[in-house]
C-alpha cells in the first residue's frame, strides 16, 4: 500500500496538477457549461417569462406528447427486454447470437435511419403505404409514427442492461425452482425478478430518458405540426427557429430537468441499495 503510494508520488507534481486541471476543464467545457447555459438562457428574462413559456398551449401539448410516447414505449420495451433477456440467458436455441446482434442494432444505426425506414415502409409511397391508405390508417406524420420510431430507438436499453447480469447469474436458481414444482410464471416472479430488479430499474430509467430525449428518428416521422406531432425536442427546434430563444431554452431546460431527476433517482437507488447492487451488478 505505502509502496504504491510512493510510486504514485514519483510523478512530478506539475504533471499531476496539469492532468487534474485538464480533466476538470474537460468536464466543465463538455458537461457543466452546456447544462448551465441551458438554464441561464432559459431564465435570462426571469422566472415570469420562463413559466409563461412552459404554460403556452403548444409547449403543454409537446410535454403531453413526450410523456405519452414515453408511457407507451417504455412499458413495451420493458416487457420486450425482459422476455428477450430471459430467452437469451436461460435457454439455448439456434440463432441466439443473431438475435443478440439484432437487439443491438438500434444502438449502432443512426436514429435518422431508424426514422427513415418507417417512412419507406409506411409512407404514402412506401411498401405498405397504399394498403394502409385504403383502410385510412396513417402511421407516418402522426402520433403513431412518433411512438413507433421511439420504440425502435429505445428497444435495446432494458435488454442490454439485463442480459449480462442474467448471464452471470446463470439458471441454477430457476432450475431449482423448476425441480420444486414452480410454474414458469411463479419462477419468474419469485426467483428471477427479485434477482434482477435493480438492473431492470436502471434499464427502465435509461430507456425513459432516451424515449423523452430522442430527436433524430422522431424528426423524420413527425411532420413537425405544432401542438400535434411535435415532441419536446422537436418543439425546442421549432421555437429556436422562430427566434423564441427564451422559450426554446425553457422547454430544453425542462428536458434537462427530466434527465437530472432520472439521474437523481438512479443515484438514490444506488446509494440506498449499494450492497444488493454490488452483489448483483457484474459489469
Amino acid at each position, binding site marked *: 500500500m505505502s509502496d504504491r503510494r510512493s510510486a504514485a508520488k514519483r510523478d512530478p507534481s506539475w504533471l499531476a496538477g496539469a492532468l487534474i486541471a485538464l480533466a476538470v476543464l474537460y468536464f466543465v467545457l463538455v458537461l457543466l457549461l452546456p447544462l448551465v447555459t441551458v438554464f441561464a438562457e432559459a431564465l435570462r428574462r426571469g422566472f415570469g417569462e420562463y413559466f409563461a413559456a412552459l404554460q403556452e398551449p403548444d409547449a403543454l401539448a409537446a410535454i403531453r406528447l413526450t410523456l*405519452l410516447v414515453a*408511457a*407507451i414505449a417504455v*412499458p413495451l420495451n420493458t416487457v420486450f427486454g425482459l422476455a428477450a433477456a430471459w430467452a437469451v440467458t436461460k435457454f439455448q436455441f439456434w440463432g441466439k447470437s443473431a438475435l443478440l446482434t439484432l437487439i443491438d442494432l438500434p444502438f449502432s444505426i443512426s436514429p435518422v435511419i431508424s426514422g427513415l425506414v418507417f*417512412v419507406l415502409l*409506411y*409512407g*404514402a*409511397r*412506401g411498401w405498405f*403505404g397504399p394498403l394502409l*391508405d385504403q383502410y385510412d390508417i*396513417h402511421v*407516418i*406524420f*402522426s*402520433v*403513431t409514427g412518433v*411512438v413507433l420510431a421511439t420504440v425502435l430507438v429505445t428497444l435495446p436499453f432494458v435488454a442490454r442492461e439485463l442480459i449480462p447480469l442474467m448471464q452471470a447469474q446463470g439458471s441454477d436458481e430457476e432450475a431449482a425452482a423448476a425441480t420444486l414444482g414452480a410454474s414458469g410464471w411463479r419462477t419468474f*416472479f*419469485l426467483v428471477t*425478478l*427479485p434477482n434482477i430488479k435493480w438492473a431492470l430499474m436502471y434499464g427502465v430509467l435509461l430507456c425513459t430518458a432516451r424515449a423523452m430525449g430522442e430527436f433524430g428518428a422522431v424528426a423524420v416521422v413527425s*411532420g*413537425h*405540426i*405544432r*401542438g*400535434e406531432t411535435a415532441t419536446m425536442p422537436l418543439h425546442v427546434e*421549432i421555437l*429556436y*427557429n*422562430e*427566434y423564441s*430563444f427564451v422559450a426554446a431554452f425553457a422547454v430544453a431546460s425542462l428536458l434537462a430537468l427530466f434527465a437530472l431527476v432520472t439521474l437523481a433517482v438512479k443515484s438514490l437507488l444506488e446509494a440506498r441499495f449499494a450492497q444488493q447492487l454490488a452483489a448483483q451488478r457484474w459489469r
Partner: protein
Amino acid sequence: MTRPLWRCVELGRRMLLAAGLAALAACGAPQQSSPSAPVRLLNVSYDPTREFYREANQVFAQHWAAEHPGQAQIEIEMSHGGSGRQARAVLDGLEADVVTLAVPYDIDQIAASGLIATDWRGRLPHNSAPYTSTMVFLVRHGNPKNIHDWSDLVRDDVAVITPNPKTSGGARWNYLAAWGYALRQPGGNAASAREFVRRLYAHVPVLDTGARGSTTTFAQRGIGDVLITWENEAFLALQEFGETQFEIVVPSVSILAEPSVALVDRNVDQHGTRAAAEAYLNFLYTPEAQELAAKHFFRPSDPSVLARHADTFRQIPLFTVDEVFGTWADVHRTHFADGAIFDQITAGVRRQ
C-alpha cells in the same frame, strides 16, 4: 418479502392493462372527429413564413367565424421546414390541406404524383403567388467587408452563408439570382455564369438545409460575412436582432421570387375541407391579408397595397425564372437534379 411481490404482480397486471387501454385511446383520439369539433386545415409551408401565417391564420379564423355563425370554428395548423423537404413530406403522406411553398417546382413535384391538379398555377391570380419577394444580402453592421453587389461575394476575403438548394427553396432562388446576375454581365454566357456560381459556392462555409437555419447560422452563431436571403427574412432578422447588428444590402439586380400556394386536391377531398381550404387561399389575396404580407415584408401582389409600401420595398430590376431559365422542370433538370450543375460544382469545390 415474497408475498408483497406476488401482490405487486397482480396489481402490475391490472395497471398494464389500464395503461395499454389508455395508450390505445390516446392513439385513437386524434383520428376521431365529432360534428362540433373545429374544422382543421393543415398548412404545410416553408421556413420564413412562420410569423406571417401565425397572424394571417388568426385573422382568417375570425373572419370564418363571423361569416359562418353557429358553425364549426376553423383551426389552422402549421408545419414549417425547408421547402423541398416539406414537399417530400407531403409526397410521403403528410396530410396537408394546403401547401404554401417557396418554389413552384416543389408544388409541381407534388402535382406530378397526382395529389394536386397539374394546372394548379392557373387556379389562383398572379400564378398562384399571393405575395412575392426577392433575394438580398444581409451584412454585419457598418458593412465591414464593403459588399454592394453579387460580384463582391466571390472576393477572397468574403464568407457567404446560403442554404443548400437541394433542400431549400430560398437557396434555389439565391442560386438562380446569382446565375442571372452573371448572365447579365458584359460577355455573360452559360459558361461564365457557371464559373461565377462555382466561385460563389466555394465561399460558403455552412450549407444549412433551410433558410431559417442559415439566418440562425449567420445572425445567432456569427458565422460568415454576408447572408444571401429572402428580402422578408432579412427585414425580419433586423427586427429580431436589432438594426445595430446588421444591415440590408440590395444588389443591382435580383430575381423575382414567387413563393406559391395550392390546395392539395386529394387531401381536401378526403378530409371534406375543400371549401374551407379554398376560402383560406382566396383570403390571402384580400387587401387585409396583403397588408399583413407587407407587414411581414413580403411584397404584396396587389399593386395598390404594394404602392402603399413603396418605401420599404426598393425597386430594382427583377428578372423572372420564365424569362431567363424557362420552365421549372428545365431549371431542375439543368441545375438541381442529381448529378446536374449544382452537384458538379460542389463536387469540384470539395475536391479543391
